[in-house]
């Protein structure tokens, strides 16, 4: 009897919050770029969620709620400044793309020529280097496959913001990926 209330809370929490651990772990992994930090972040998120469980409104989107806790924890932990790349860098990608574009009609072939040799690690690193707001929407859209509406609820901003962040986030990512590919000699220097 003494712990009936905490038992109920515990089982409620386990039933509702625990099934979303995988999605949150993946987000943590892509945001931090390593397993240890991702584990810490996941742990912190679940502890906080449990502590504030009575603040969660039953019937609302639990995943969005957990997600916001994780995002805030992430921001508090890793307040590092990541700079947006200059537009000059971006022009370089586009110019290069336009030159090889003349040589080939099939876009799949172009993708292969530009980025085909990149490894998962390269792509993960490039993604990790983006500023948090941009990285977040790219992860949620391109890795987790959420709709704009869901993402807007997760990050607590209008759909238009999600859209523009995605566009800019992907452009930054292009520059990073292009740099990787160039440095490692996957693509030519001129």
């Amino acid at each position, binding site marked *: 009897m003494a712990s009936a*209330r905490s038992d109920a809370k*515990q089982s409620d929490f*386990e039933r509702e919050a625990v099934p979303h651990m995988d999605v949150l*772990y993946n987000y943590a992994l892509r945001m931090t770029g390593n397993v240890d930090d991702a584990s810490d972040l996941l*742990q912190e998120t679940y502890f906080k969620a449990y502590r504030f469980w009575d603040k969660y409104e039953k019937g609302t989107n639990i995943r969005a709620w957990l997600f916001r806790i994780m995002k805030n924890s992430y921001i508090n932990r890793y307040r590092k400044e990541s700079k947006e790349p200059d537009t000059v860098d971006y022009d370089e990608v586009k110019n290069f*793309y336009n030159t090889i574009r003349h040589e080939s009609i099939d*876009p799949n072939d172009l993708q292969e020529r530009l980025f085909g040799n990149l490894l998962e690690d390269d792509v993960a690193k490039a993604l990790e280097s983006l500023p948090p707001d941009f990285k977040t929407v*790219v992860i949620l859209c391109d*890795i987790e496959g959420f709709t704009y509406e869901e993402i807007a609820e997760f990050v607590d901003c209008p759909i238009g913001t999600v859209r*523009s962040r995605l566009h800019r986030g992907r452009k930054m990512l292009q520059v990073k990926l292009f740099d990787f590919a160039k440095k490692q000699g996957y693509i030519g220097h001129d």
Partner: protein
Amino acid sequence: MDCTETIEYLSAFVDGELQVGPRKEMETHIARCLSCRSEFELERMTKGIVRAKISTQKVPASLQIRILQELEKQGMARETVGDKVRRAFRFVASGLRQPALRPAVLLGAALVLGVVAFLLFLRREPAAPRGELEASDLVQQAVFHYSSYLNGDMPLQYVSSDRTELQNYFQQKVAFDVYMPKMAEAQLIGGFLCEHTGGKFVNFIYKADNKVIFFSVACSKEMKTKGKFRLSAQAETDLDRTGWHFDTSRTACNVALWKENDEVCSVVADMKKEELLALLKDDEQ
């Protein structure tokens, strides 16, 4: 649609988030405008690369267990010490304001305080939360450690799913051979060592179909020389005759016992005897 608008809605176009009308307009513009077409192809490509190269992972089982165990502990500690005591005091105070109820309330409060103090006393010693083990019977001791683990009173000392790593870790801590069953159908979570009246037990936690399987190994010589733990007469007879002893007298779990050279092994799980046996039989090949 012009270039500025196209770029503004480009990501929505790539992600299939545009309504039919704007989508058609966008298609027409992109077909005509080389610059926007490049932008579009690059954005689509970038999305494609992220999707193709980055895989999704599952939360490691050990991490999940660690989080759940910690939550359980946090929940209990806070509920007992915080809210409950405060609520009890409010209740007592309101009773004391009514003279007719005073004696009854005081007596009740004294009783409650006694119980709370007793519970807190039990909580103080996480290694033996239910007091010392009364019986020296090995089966009872295995069941005791199994339920202590489930209650969160016995945290894992080493969390890993790697059998060799776990075995090496605990081998350094005891003088007997740390035997571990493979149980191919179950996943290893981690282990903990405990000591009871002179005998050491190495315990491992496995999981299969979300059920906890507790495995414990102890040295039978150590048991005999230190004289504290024993097998029941029935268990001794069963082991001699068939090599196995089962205890299916409990509702919450069943126990299987057997010997490996000088070590006595026991397995406890909320599973039927046949299921337990099937898990363990894997090892015999």
